């Protein structure tokens, strides 16, 4: 592995390497295994999508990495997250609170689903963007203001000189998300984490934001982790996709093989459940029976077995390991759907 190399724009250099991440929440009724042994590598400048249904652990995975899991109920109980930045390697999960605070915002930027609750309602958006710049770069207020104006213009907010004094409630949903993006990129982060940034937006505005993030990623050479439940958005946006189910990795692949040759019955089910805008509309949707699993003390076997049409004896006995089925294509399943038989050699 090439550690400490000076990043070249085209070479695949890992930026973030997560190994065996586990996060739990301690509740009155028991321990919720929200994230269970999740690993992945994020390369420089690539977009990775984290896909799954509500409660699958996709957001908690990201919150764990940046130290935002609500303590004391939530706890990262295992794993490491190596962040390669130039010549230094740091384990994000071992940083102190103060160090993490420096990483958030400057090395890793974040945008969330609901910009209205993420923005402070009684501060102008100018103050909020400047605040991030002053906090991380230590520049003067007037320099920060100049940069804020530039940023507002850059993320496509018309008339920045006037809008810098506006409050969040005076902005529409799409504009608020642009403000969030301006804050997130103000310190040129290496990684932008976007947690369902378009879910609350209308489809035409969603297209604008997806476009903007794609453009920023290219221009600023950021890596993007895009968390979503929408496999449609992912198709045009991501280089690689990780599908999560029940706090675990179900499947991980480059975007094309994931859509053209999905291996996990859950991925296959998700794709089948989507109505097509281009194809035959009279086809019946393939639905996945049942509901997502309860992560309160989950059983020690495949969590998808409850809903899986292919489940056999073994699926009820063990947790399937991640099996390599192609170039950086891994699946956590004992069954080969294409062959119609259990996989060999596991």
């Amino acid at each position, binding site marked *: 592995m090439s550690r400490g190399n000076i990043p070249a724009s085209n070479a695949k250099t890992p930026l973030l390497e997560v190994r065996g991440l586990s996060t739990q929440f301690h509740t009155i009724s028991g321990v919720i295994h929200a994230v269970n042994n999740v690993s992945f590598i994020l390369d420089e400048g690539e977009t990775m999508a984290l896909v799954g*249904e*509500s409660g699958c652990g996709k957001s908690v995975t990201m919150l764990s990495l940046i130290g935002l899991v609500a303590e004391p109920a939530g706890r990262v109980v295992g794993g490491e997250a190596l962040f390669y930045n130039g010549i230094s390697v740091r384990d994000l999960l071992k940083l102190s609170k103060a160090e993490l605070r420096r990483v958030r915002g400057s090395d890793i930027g974040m945008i969330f689903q609901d910009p209205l609750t993420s923005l402070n309602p009684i501060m102008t958006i100018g103050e909020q963007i400047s605040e991030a710049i002053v906090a991380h770069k230590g520049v003067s207020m007037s320099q920060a203001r100049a940069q804020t104006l530039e940023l507002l213009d850059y993320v496509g907010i018309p008339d920045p000189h006037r809008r810098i004094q506006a409050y969040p409630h005076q902005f*529409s949903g*799409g*504009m608020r998300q642009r403000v969030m993006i301006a804050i997130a990129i103000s310190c040129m982060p290496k990684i932008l984490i976007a947690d369902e940034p378009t879910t609350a937006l*209308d*489809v*035409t*505005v*969603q*297209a*604008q934001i*997806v*476009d903007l993030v794609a453009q920023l990623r290219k221009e600023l050479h950021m890596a993007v982790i895009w968390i979503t*439940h*929408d*496999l*449609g*958005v*992912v*198709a*045009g946006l991501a280089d690689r996709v990780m599908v999560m189910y029940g706090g675990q990795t179900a499947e991980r692949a480059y*975007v*094309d093989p994931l*859509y*053209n040759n999905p291996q996990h019955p859950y991925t296959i*089910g*998700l*794709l*089948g*459940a*989507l*109505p*097509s*805008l*281009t194809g035959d*509309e009279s086809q*019946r*949707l*393939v*639905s*996945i*029976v049942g*509901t*997502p699993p309860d992560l309160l003390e989950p059983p020690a076997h495949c969590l998808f077995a409850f809903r899986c049409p292919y489940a056999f004896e073994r699926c009820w006995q063990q947790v399937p390991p991640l099996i390599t089925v192609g170039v950086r294509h891994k699946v956590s399943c004992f069954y080969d759907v294409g062959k119609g038989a259990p996989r060999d050699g596991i």
Partner: protein
Amino acid sequence: MESETRSLVRVEHLKKHFPITHGLLLSRQVGAVKAVDDVSFDIQEGETLGLVGESGSGKSTVGRSILQLYKITAGKVFFEDVELTALSAEELRKLRPKMQMIFQDSYAALNPRHTVAKIIAEPMAVHGDYDAAQIRLRTLELLDLVSLKEAYLSRFPHEFSGGQRQRIGIARALALNPRFVVCDEPISALDVSIQAQVVNLLSDLQKELRLTYLFIAHDLSMVKHISHRVAVMYLGKIVELAQRKDLFAKPLHPYTQALISAVPVPAPELERRRRRIILKGEVPSPANPPKGCVFSTRCPVAIPECSQVEPSSQQVAPGHFVACHLVNPIVEGTKIT
């Protein structure tokens, strides 16, 4: 619209304006939010009409206005050729069993302190001449219809998942054997795998019970899947209405074109090749809609006339209605002179 088949629901020049008032004691009206502004369409028996639009386009207001849950500002609504808008409250109440609604937020729509048995039985207790035994029988029948277990009868809404709650809502809506059901974003709050379950259930029920749906949604691909005809709303107006096939194969209104192109398709190669029409800006406020065509402020092909004269809805092909000054030139692919 003239048609051979019988229309079950007919809406003529429907307007619903919500007043904007100022002052607390001597409040006076200072304006109006034109949530729905002059909308006409009909729904055939056994048909699903999809109604799509972005938030604030007035699609839910149309649904509620048809069911007379709002007092409409102007226009007429017919159900089985009866003018609902002219009925007294009591006469309307007698018709209500035939028109029901399924809501987006099934959690808010179900009383948290009632058991499933009580929730499903309530419409029968209110409207029907059923005795307790009949209600019990019918409740079980309805549960079976929406594939829920009998054991659930004594449970409360919070004990269910979103998809199951939506099934309870559907069972309640069907309790009185309605002919027409307004489905107001019934799947928007559900996970993808559960959405498919509910949509499949709705189409099965339609076939089995000969139901007529108004299916309101912002998800174009789901609307395409379930609807026979689709109406596209923008800022209180229907800008285009056509058979599903026509609307998606050759959308004529620039807004419909942009809307369809903005929907991401779950196919990577296709997504990379697709050319998106990215609309500038956002939907204007319905309290102060633009002059002329409501879409003129964001329209990529607008001409000066568009911001002056409001286009009327015209039939450009059998059953295909469009409200746009430029429709003919767009069809022929030439520029207007």
